[in-house]
């Protein structure tokens, strides 16, 4: 098992390398630079700035230097948010994004699987159609429509919850963003659970259980354990995406997560900030893919730790 984890870890290093390289060059090929303002700077100042940040060197040298720094864990200074290093910015944003993401994933998993199981047990009933309807709504209504609606209804009309702000992660402030963030995922998980439960309930080994009079509760447990596997592989990358921030939710609710920094960074050609975010997101994706593989191996005895 340990060997499996270690091997899995090392096999993700080339992927990370490709991601970093691709992003680095893609970003640099794009026109514009970090110091292009509305009014162009004087050539002399521009030159000095470029020299100070090493942007006047050949691209390949910059790339080599970036890689070397990255290996030492140094993500460099931010170009746009002056006086801050990228690491500092990310360390500030990450806890916010991760809090929201974790809660949203837990909500999605809990509510989504429950709804899916209920619907699958009452296939083609009113309950089933209600769940399908809700799930379809969840994936089709964009969250930048849901978010302002929630703000109006719960924040202004009912005045139950604040419409935005982080407030050091106070529960009242988190509720709305977490729900908005979780809603599409609840919908997807509910749909997937329903589909794979229906499949599992029709499987031969569930028929065996029924023929042995094992009862509804045990049948659901057995079916769900098999049905949960595809959901885990869906949630892996999704969790990585949610934990590393949702641009829309963070923008609408005014939350200082890394999703916002990323978009601002990209728009302002803040090379180091964008690269830093990309690296963090890629690491999250790789880690979560690894977690999925490990969970799979733990839950499904047919998967062997080679």
């Amino acid at each position, binding site marked *: 098992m340990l060997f499996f984890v270690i091997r899995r870890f090392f096999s993700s290093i080339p*992927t990370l390398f490709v991601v970093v390289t691709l992003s680095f060059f893609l970003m640099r090929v794009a026109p514009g630079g970090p110091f292009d303002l509305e009014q162009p700077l004087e050539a002399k100042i521009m030159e000095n700035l470029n020299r100070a940040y090493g942007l006047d060197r050949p691209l390949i040298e910059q790339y080599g230097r970036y890689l070397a720094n990255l290996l030492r864990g140094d993500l460099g200074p931010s170009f746009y948010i002056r006086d801050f290093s990228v690491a500092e910015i990310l360390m500030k944003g990450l806890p916010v994004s991760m809090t929201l993401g974790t809660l949203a994933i837990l909500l999605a998993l809990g509510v989504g699987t429950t709804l899916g199981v209920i619907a699958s047990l009452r296939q083609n009933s009113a309950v089933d159609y209600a769940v399908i309807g809700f799930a*379809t709504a969840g994936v089709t209504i964009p969250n*930048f429509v849901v978010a302002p609606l929630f703000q109006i209804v719960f924040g202004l009309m009912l005045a139950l919850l604040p419409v935005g702000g982080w407030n050091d992660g106070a529960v009242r402030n988190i509720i709305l963003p977490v729900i908005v963030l979780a809603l599409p995922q609840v919908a997807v998980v509910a749909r997937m659970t329903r589909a794979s439960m229906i499949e599992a309930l029709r499987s031969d080994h569930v028929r065996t259980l029924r023929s042995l009079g094992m009862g509804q509760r045990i049948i659901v447990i057995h079916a769900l354990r098999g049905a949960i596997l595809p959901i885990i592989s869906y949630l892996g990358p999704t969790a990585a995406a949610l934990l590393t921030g949702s641009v829309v939710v963070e923008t609408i609710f005014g939350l200082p997560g890394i999703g916002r920094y*990323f978009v601002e960074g990209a728009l302002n050609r803040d090379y180091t900030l964008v690269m830093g975010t990309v690296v963090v997101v*890629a690491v999250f994706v790789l880690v979560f893919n690894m977690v999925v593989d490990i969970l799979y191996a733990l839950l499904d005895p047919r998967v062997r730790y080679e």
Partner: protein
Amino acid sequence: MSEAATHGRSLWADARDRLARNRAAMASLVLISLIALACLFGPFLTGHAYDKVYSDYVKVPASLASQPTEDRIGPALQRTASRLRATIASDTREGNTIRLVLTAPRAIDERSLAFFERSDLFHAAKVLERAEEGKRLTLLVPIERNRFLFGTDGNGRDMLTRTLIAGRVSLAIGLLATFVAILIGVTYGAVSGYLGGRVDTVMMRAVDVLYSLPFIFFVIMLVVFFGRNFVLMFLAVGAVEWLDMARIVRGQTLSLKRREFVQAADVLGVSTPGILRRHIIPNTLGPVVVYTTLLVPKVILLESFLSFLGLGVQEPMTSWGVLISDGARNIQGATYLLIFPAIFLTTTLFCLNFIGDGLRDALDPRDR
């Protein structure tokens, strides 16, 4: 009877029948056709151009009533009169025209009567009578009638026309990007699956790497790269969204390759292109069709997300995403700015999802 005996029903025909019995899918099909037709031909019928600015009608709420409303006419006349440096001596309504008497301390320059025409409330004024050396004018001012069923936006543009035009753009983007994604995905997946072996390993490894790239980053880079040209941009989005398609088609091809009817064709001596054309591709089509109907809404949603970030279609062109993000900013004062495009967008997405689900059930009756 003999007709039935000699002419078989293909699996496609069976699937079509099953789909026809699916009420949600059929209703969705009708609804989405109506939306598409409305977006295609509607803008010619609304009487407004999508980029025409009615500066006198900024943020007019949605209503069936014709504009201008009575309470707008008085102030508008006052405003125009003061531009002519004149005062209104009297105004009398005769149906849709106003008989207006203006007086001024100095002679009124008749060229400046064009202010009436320039206003969005009136047509060109006609001089009936000139008195006191041009210091007193009697005018006939026809009222310009307009209807804004969905209201007007912050710049005074007709929301109905804009919503329909936006629909054209969103649907076109959805179809275009999906087409690109399908084209790349099917080719890549079929080649990878059919060739197999080391080629397959390398090709799928590349897909894995692309999967772990932060997607938003990719799109934003592409937008920056292609400079917000929406056709190019969505070719690019399509170029990103093909990954799932490639995986689906590859999996299908791999399993089809092992099927006995493909081996049978091999034994008959059928060439590789013949096998792909007659045996592999027709049988991967089902999942491709289903995935297509689910990819279109995904792309439309993605476009609206980019618009929300301010990276979408450029003014005065518009898309549902642009309108919605605009509406979301004005949600407190002018809810109708959000409501109408949101209804169009979500209805379209709902319909496409139901059609996709219906197709899946129809093509794979096992999952019922």
